[in-house]
């Protein structure tokens, strides 16, 4: 009982602190600072993409390669080998186009993840409020002159479930919050591998 109460308190406190700082999003549940979008320059120091590279990035072959590289289950050694193969007859424009295609695969996926985490944060806050309301109601029912024990039992069961869901979600939060970073790491590693072939 004390554990989940502590959890709710922490959650509410965290939301309170976050709310005090306008630069923070109160719905954001992670320790990591919310960064809604990744920008190409964070993972790439080569030439900036232009219309010509954008056209090459739309080429089915480049898009297929980008889609292959982006998959996290593909080991980096394999990804590097495919990049080296591509780089054999690719100029800087083609390399930039490949990076641009990789980035445009990873960025939307990451943004969708960030939105999902924010929704997760909001629903967790709502749940914390509901748990507090249920506890208040329980106290009220128990304090009645002639307590309705059936109502108390029903309320207690509902409260148990809410607490369980709240705690389970809180425990998986660490992993959930790590996922955007894993995508950033992939983009950075691919950026470094592609940039190593710039002439």
């Amino acid at each position, binding site marked *: 009982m004390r554990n989940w109460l502590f959890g709710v308190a922490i959650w509410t406190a965290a939301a309170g602190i976050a709310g*005090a*700082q306008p*630069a923070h999003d109160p719905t954001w549940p992670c320790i990591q*600072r919310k*960064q*809604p*979008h*990744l*920008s*190409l*320059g*964070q*993972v*790439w*120091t080569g030439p*900036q993409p232009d219309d010509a590279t954008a056209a090459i990035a739309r080429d089915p072959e480049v898009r297929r390669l980008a889609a292959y590289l982006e998959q996290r289950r593909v080991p980096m050694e394999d990804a590097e080998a495919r990049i080296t193969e591509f780089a054999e007859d690719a100029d800087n424009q083609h390399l930039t186009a490949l990076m641009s295609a990789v980035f445009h695969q990873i960025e939307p996926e990451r943004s969708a993840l960030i939105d999902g985490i924010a929704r997760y944060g909001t629903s967790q806050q709502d749940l914390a409020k509901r748990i507090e309301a249920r506890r208040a109601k329980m106290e009220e029912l128990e304090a009645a002159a002639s307590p309705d024990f059936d109502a108390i039992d029903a309320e207690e069961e509902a409260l148990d479930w809410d607490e369980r869901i709240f705690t389970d979600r809180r425990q998986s939060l660490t992993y959930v919050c790590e996922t955007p*970073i894993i995508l*950033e*790491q992939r983009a*950075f*590693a691919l950026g470094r591998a592609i940039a190593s072939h710039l002439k």
Partner: protein
Amino acid sequence: MNHLPLAAALILATAVPAAANRVFVSNEKSNDVTVLDSDTLEVIGTYPVGNRPRGIAISPDGSELYICVSDDNIVRVFDPETMEELHTLPSGPDPELFVLHPSGNPLYIANEDDNLVTVVDTQTHERLAEIPVGVEPEGMGVSPDGKTVINTSETTNMAHFIDSETFEIYANTLVDSRPRFAEYNHDGSKLYVSSEIGGTVSVIDPTTQQIVDKIEFEIPGVLPEAIQPVGVRVTNDGSKVFVALGPANRVAVIDGETDEIIDYLLVGQRVWQMAFTPDESLLFTTNGNSNDVSAIDVESLEVVKSIQVGQQPWGVVVAPDAQ
């Protein structure tokens, strides 16, 4: 051509004996310290040090390594040669960053959770004072003459000037949002305070405590919110200032005279803190999200190597030359 300065440095290093220094990197997530050799740039070893190590410093004589182990709410002291724990020093809850007096004593510790700076005698291990500061104290700096200690508070957005004799705050300077780090240049004429959310570095005149310049950063292709200045280091001659820009994955190089930006160097992901070798030939950066350390050639401004370390490297310190 680019490798010439490094090659020259290596030749010099082999000609002059005992040029290698140990580099200590605190890994926030893997709860250990990675030790590197500044000469070979190879990992010497990895040693467990306690829960969530962040701030890291070494005594001027190189005999004691201090580590803020934030989740243990304590400072642990290690023998830098053997990495055996010697003793602990008291701090408040969640110590994050600290600074040593230039003489090596005392140690000034920012405790993020209780709005206090703890002053600890490194010889007697006694707590000398607790100084109330702003909300979420974070960055710590000390003037070269040791007379003033600076603390920055994340939420109050201030740099507090503390008299190191009386432990009283004698001035406050309002800076941009979430100040993270405070660093003096070596003649004490400028104080640099980085603001993580504000995205700026305030240049403060320590005699008037007024902001004389504000450095702003702009990197093509990088969204402004990804530019989050954290660690700051200044060369001994004051000519170059290095600023770690967090998730922009770059270190900005600034002209220490004009406060103009000279260059941006791509290092690793979420670059956080930095440390020079004693001869200032290399600058090491901790890159928290790519789990590596970058070595920058200070003269040529080239990133010469990335070295994989533990999980989420946070702080870095280089041992002084053997005495």
